């Protein structure tokens, strides 16, 4: 009977991690919408809603610790709990990055890079997270390798986007701009580069989730670095 309850707790942990992922991805997609539309109330909603993500994270962390302390899992169960423990940290960080994006998006719209370009990058990173959590849910090792490979493309795309921003900045003739315009321009550059960097980090967290999932499924640490 006690072992049945233990199995139910493991099943519940998996479902709860997937549910936390749904919440984080919802916030992240809202943040991308903010970036595209400048919707300030949606931005506030994403930023204010981060505490809910944090609470979920702490609850799940507590669940993992309780399972380790009371059930002392071993073998596949141990890898599952240890991986879940790590994955919820990645999800929480993605939630933080979503609040960053919502904050950048609510500021002045960039003139350096078309918002839809940023959003397209963001969507690629978001789909990697969604797929990574799908792989976690069904313990699909092949999928983890495929998602990790997509991160190389995302990194390259982010590098190119950053270079475009810097080139445009270099193309500016400061003598034609007022002091206020220069300040605005620098703030825009900074914000746009930070946005691209955060999107690239979302992709990294997706790879982390894949790495832990691969370890969980096959005891393979090939993606952990």
């Amino acid at each position, binding site marked *: 009977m006690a*072992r049945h309850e*233990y*199995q139910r707790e493991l099943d519940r942990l998996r479902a709860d991690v997937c549910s936390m992922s749904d919440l984080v991805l919802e916030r992240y997609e809202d943040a991308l919408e903010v970036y595209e539309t400048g919707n300030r109330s949606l931005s506030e909603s994403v930023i204010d809603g981060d505490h809910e993500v944090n609470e979920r994270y702490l609850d799940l962390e507590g669940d993992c610790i309780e399972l380790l302390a009371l059930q*002392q*899992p*071993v*073998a*596949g*169960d*141990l*890898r599952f709990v240890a991986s879940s423990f790590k994955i919820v940290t990645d999800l929480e960080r993605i939630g933080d990055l979503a609040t960053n994006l919502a904050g950048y998006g609510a500021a002045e719209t960039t003139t350096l890079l078309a918002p839809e370009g940023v959003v397209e990058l963001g969507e690629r990173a978001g789909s990697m997270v969604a797929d990574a959590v799908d792989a976690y849910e069904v313990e699909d090792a092949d999928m983890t390798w495929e998602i990790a490979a997509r991160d190389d493309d995302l990194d390259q795309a982010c590098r190119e986007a950053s270079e475009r921003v810097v080139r445009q900045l270099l193309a500016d003739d400061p003598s034609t701009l007022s002091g206020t315009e220069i300040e605005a321009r620098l703030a825009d550059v900074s914000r746009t580069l930070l946005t691209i960097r955060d999107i690239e980090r979302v992709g990294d967290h997706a790879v982390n989730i894949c790495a832990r999932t691969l370890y969980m499924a096959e*005891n393979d640490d090939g993606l952990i670095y």
Partner: protein
Amino acid sequence: MSSNMTDTPDETLIETGFEVEADRTHEQTDTEAILQSENLSVNYGDEQALDDVTIEIPENRVTAIIGPSGCGKSTFLRSINRMNDRIRSCAVDGELYFHGKNVYDDDVDPVALRRKIGQVFQAPNPFPKSIYDNVAYGLRIQGRDDEVDLDEAVERALRGAALWDEVSHQLDSSGLDLSGGQQQRLCIARAIATDPEVLLMDEPTSALDPVAASKIEDLIDELVEKYTVVIVTHNMQQAARISDKTAVFLTGGELVEYDDTATVFENPADSRVEDYITGKFG
């Protein structure tokens, strides 16, 4: 069936009953194993307790034997020092080598064997004698009766069992007056007093509270510097904590998996082992 080592049996071993210190380097060069079973099967009448077990147990390591009740763990342990000889219905087939010498060869003296392969049992079983006499018992049987020699050996054994500081002032007290954990350490002192090479432990902490059990676990960690420890335990966390190698037996006396402890508990190769150690029985 015989190994290379048994092709050239150690004459010293046969003559003097396993006093082979001088030749151990040779054995360790060939293999790190101090104990090896090859196709070992044990039956109690019609009941098969061990089924074709082949395993190598490394020297100066802790090897844990785990598995459900009735899987042959204790039978395997008793096979090592021929304690099964005392069971009339017991039939042993296959080989069990200690330093390359099959302990079931006709020329092996089981008493001499048990001097080299000591055993500690589930429940502490000190003799109804003084602490001193408990430890000196085996030494006196060996014919060592010089008082100074005995005093030194008793102190050494009690220190080795991490009991000296607690009992040095009461060596004449009865061993039965000690706490359960102290009694078990006294039994370990008694087992190591005769200077064995291997210590077999059959659930040595199952009758002890967690604090006393923890002291025994710490002691095992120290003992392994001098001795090879083979421990049967039902406590899988204990096996995971203290052993270097873990052997998993399942019903029918089958050795299902034997590997580094970390591998067995993190990524067992056999799904039946995974089911057993995670508590899912098929």
